[in-house]
């Protein structure tokens, strides 16, 4: 999968198997997973020590519904891009807490590939690639969406 550059990805997910599969999907897309965190403390510690480019963040974690706060901290304090990965999309704050997009669980490996493609396009500022169709389980943050379509 050399069509993408390599992103350093942090997975914030308290379901072991889901985290492992996400790691496996990202690895097969040529991305580097720098760690898996199951709650806020671990997530912020990994953000500080391993400087990820992207974090895939679940909303409900071992320490409660802390996903949105983690996202905000990662974005503002650590300059990390965030994509939510959640089974309860209605719990995403209306401003997406600054995240780029959300992928609805349970997702398919193809959906993960679309998200990775979207994040790379965003980093490259490639608006045409960003506007490419995405699988139904992916939604772009409303403010970002408004600039694209």
């Amino acid at each position, binding site marked *: 999968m050399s069509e993408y550059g390599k992103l350093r990805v942090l997975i914030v997910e308290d*379901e*072991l*198997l*889901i985290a*492992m*599969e*996400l790691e*496996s999907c990202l690895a097969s897309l040529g991305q580097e997973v720098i760690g898996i965190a199951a709650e806020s403390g671990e997530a912020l510690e990994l953000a500080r020590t391993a400087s990820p480019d992207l974090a895939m963040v679940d*909303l*409900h*974690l071992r320490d*409660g*519904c802390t996903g949105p706060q983690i996202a905000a901290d990662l974005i503002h304090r650590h300059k990390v891009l965030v994509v939510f990965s959640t*089974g*309860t999309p209605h719990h995403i704050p209306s401003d997406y807490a600054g995240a780029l997009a959300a992928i609805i*669980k*349970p997702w398919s*490996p193809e959906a993960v590939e679309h998200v990775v493609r979207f994040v790379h396009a965003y980093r490259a500022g490639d608006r045409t690639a960003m506007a490419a169709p995405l699988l139904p389980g992916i939604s772009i943050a409303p403010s970002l969406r408004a600039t694209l379509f």
Partner: protein
Amino acid sequence: MRREPCAQAGSTELLAAPEETQFAHINQLSFRRLIETTADGVLVLDLSGVVLYANPAAEEIFGHSKDELLNIPLGRPVASGETAELTVRRPGKKPAEVEMRVVEFAWDGRPAILASLRDISARRAHEERQRQSQKLEAIGRLSAGLVHDLNNLLGVFDAGLRLLRKQIAEDPADPKVDMLIEEMLKRAKTGGALTQQLLAFSRRQPLTPTAIDLNARIDSLTNLLERTLGGGVKIERKLDAALGPVLIDANQLDVALLNLAANGRDAMGGQGVLTIETCEAPSDLEDLPNAAAGYVRVTVADSGSGMSEDVLAQAFEPFFTTKGEGDGTGLGLSQVYGFVRQSGGQVRIDSEVGTGTRVHLFLPRAPAEG
């Protein structure tokens, strides 16, 4: 002419009521027809419980003809002025739930008992259907959480199976294969436990108060609540380990606690702490019908929005709800109140706007064994 010869000897007493002048124009035959036609069963028994008279409705209720009834000693089931409920087993028919009221009077110049009987089987069946629908409704209040829990579980299996397929293709002998299988088996087991609990919960059961361990019941329910109230609600238990058993219908208690927990969750907008506390209740509490037996208190408290005085005053009324249309039926607290009062207990709500709500249930202690 007003006093025709009695159609049945002894009925003089029935006619000697103060209404005599008012109903003077009604003759004795009409009175007799009244008794023979009324839908309520009428029995006259002597003091040893032998039937002296039975009207057709009583024959219907007991499933025996008048002649048969006249030979059956029924005993003397209740004291005068009291109401009793009895189950009457009838030949070839379903048992009837019968409400019986008794007054003493004189019949044929001798002291006797007049019993009025009413078949309340239909009402009882209706109440049971109502309990069942209240129970299903309480489960319905958790459905969003349940769907999320199951969806999450499906996601786990989905991910696990794809990982397994990949791992087997790479190296089937890798220990990771076993680890994945074990992890999925573990999750399948906890998922199964949840559905078992729900099935047990929704089963139709007659109302049967028994001596139950309140703390154990709360422990087992907490597992269900933790997985259905949503990730934003933290459940704290403060259970008095020395608590004795209470006399209550376990199933209805679950429904009541579930309703209170769902109310708490809604009052907190899905985010906050729900506390379930048990302790001994003080013995000098007002308005408890059976203070001698003693009471135990269970309190469900939330850290939510609280209730205004207006809302508080209407909280127990059926169909009263502060939730938007389609969100609440207003039957949650009325189930709690109905059940606790029926069990000989009491409910108190302690709430102010901004301080959250504490609902206290006072439940009767089970009598000591032996």
